[in-house]
């Protein structure tokens, strides 16, 4: 009985230590943002900087030349706010200003917004979007990047 208690305590201590390591604990959080793409997309992974280029429409095609279909979360959603902060490094006003300027400079608009992004990414060839880990059906899409919530 005592040995079992000791074993339990040691296991709990080990798990606690693992939880303190940055990136390890957050990698498994349901609030992590997964960057998901259609399974037909050739890319296997992606950096945050590259993702920023895509969602600011500075980059518009995949490495094989196919056009990227970027899909945003709804403007006031929590995941959009988190994405804006972690990836675009912007406030909501800054992002709105960026797109107002791009409308005049390059005649381009922000990526379209959808609520059911996993389904859209599954259905649309060359699509890319993002969602919380808890919302993603991993079997139907490809995960290119995990953005931990810090």
């Amino acid at each position, binding site marked *: 009985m005592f040995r079992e208690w000791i074993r339990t305590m040691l296991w709990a201590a080990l798990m606690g230590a693992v939880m303190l390591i940055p990136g390890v604990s957050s990698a498994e959080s349901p609030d992590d943002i997964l960057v998901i793409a259609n399974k037909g997309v050739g890319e296997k992974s992606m*950096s945050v*900087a*590259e993702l*920023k*280029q895509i969602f600011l429409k*500075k*980059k*518009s*095609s995949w490495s094989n*030349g*196919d*056009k990227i279909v970027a*899909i945003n979360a709804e403007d006031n959603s929590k995941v959009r706010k988190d994405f804006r902060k972690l990836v675009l*490094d912007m*406030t909501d*006003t800054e992002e*709105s*200003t960026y*797109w*107002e*300027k791009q*409308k*005049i*400079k390059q*005649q381009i*608009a922000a990526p*379209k917004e*959808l*609520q*059911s992004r996993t*389904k*859209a990414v*599954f*259905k*649309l060839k060359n699509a890319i979007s993002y969602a919380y880990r808890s919302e993603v*059906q991993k*079997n*139907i899409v490809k995960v290119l990047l995990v953005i931990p919530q810090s």
Partner: protein
Amino acid sequence: MACQSIQSATRENPCGVAGRPVTLAAAMGILLLSAGPVRAQSGAEPKDAAVEDSQAADSRDAELESLKKRLDALEQSRAAEQAEKEALQKRLEAVESNPSEGGNTELEERVDSLETSQIEQMQEEERKLKIFGFADVQWYKFWYKKDSAYTNSLNDNNSFAVAHWNLFMEKRLSEQFRVLGEVRFLFQPYGEELSVDSELWGTEWERANVKATDWVDAYYFEWGGISIERFWIEYHPNDYFGVKAGMYLTPYGVWNVDHGSTVVIPAHRPFISTARLLPESQTGLYLYGRAFPSDKTAIDYGLTLSNGRGPTTKLYDLDESKALGGLLTFSYDGPVVALSFGTYLFIGESTDITRGNGFDAATGQSTNYINTVYNYIEKSMSFYLKFEAAGFLLQSEFVRGLIRYEEGGRALYFEMSDTLAYYLPDFIQQGAYVLAAYRLPFDAVSISPYFIYEYGEPDPMSALPSGHNFGGGINWRITPAVVWKVEGFHHHANKSLFGLQAERLHYNVVSTQLAVSY
């Protein structure tokens, strides 16, 4: 001792003879009553043994039968659970591999249908005709000395004006094709003062008459103008390659590309743009593309092939040669710093002619003639730099062009008489600006004070004087689509113009501009 023992047992009759028989009788009675069943069992055993054995065997059989039934029931239940588990597993796999299959209940089908229609709607939205644009209204005032050269040409009364109303129409025809048109609505030529006598030593100005009578109710109105800023058809299959055919903005520097009053920081155009040191737009082809050496850097290239400059080049070219341009830019977008710089080189031939016909007395035939007004080769280059960090912006552009006239194509500067005329020499035109702005560190408002320095050296025929501009102001982005600017600048001429001393060419301007994008 016995008596003591009994006495100790019954204190009410201590060693009394009369008490003993009562106690015994009671004890025997209790024994008899309590021993009754024992006596009966022991007394019945030999007689009921066979019956009891038979009953026990029946009971065991019944119990076994009951257990067997329960086992059968449990096994059946387990088999059913296993079958259900397998069925659920198969359904789960089907749903995971394709959500549109497997387990589509009515509710799931409705959700799926709704989501599909949202996706289709999103795709349809991409293909719709989009109408948007920018506009700005201004208040401004010029100041200059009483003996200034501008007293007869530059209105120094403070005035309000609708400066820009630009409308964009864009439609994506497919994933690779789109068209874009931009027009600017103008009041001009309303208010335009045109010289009717351009003799060197005397010029008279006459205001354009734009009054027209409304045929419906005989009320008059002033007609305005529409300037087509650009119209192109784009084929853009991927980042690495794209082509625009039509009329496009010359892709040099920052200002000419940014273009809109809500995008650029100051309220006034810089000299390099107003003096058209490079053509603002060109008609022809524009090939372009972008490569990504790393995830934070990009290299843009471009190649322009067009009619070049000239009085008719939006429609047709007055010479056979085509203008060529090359663009190369580099940009870095890091977490702290954003930097971009680049160059655009332009070479083109520019020609103007007059046509006519006359009568050849010698032959008696009518003849056509073409006179060259000017014909020159232009070689221009531009550089730009843009640096942003922590709210600070540094932006600079430089343009320099060499104009070399072809033989017989030198432009007339002025003509004194039929025998005395002056023609323009080859010349260099150039200009530059440096703009520094800082976005104040307030989250609630976006206010950027800025300073600008410009240098300009236009072509000898330009009405713009050569010199320096020193200016500054405040750019307040009230909302993402609304910008208010207040600025002032001083122009300091450094060369005489048409015989006018430089001191008479200085001027000051204050202005405020409210710009919106929509």
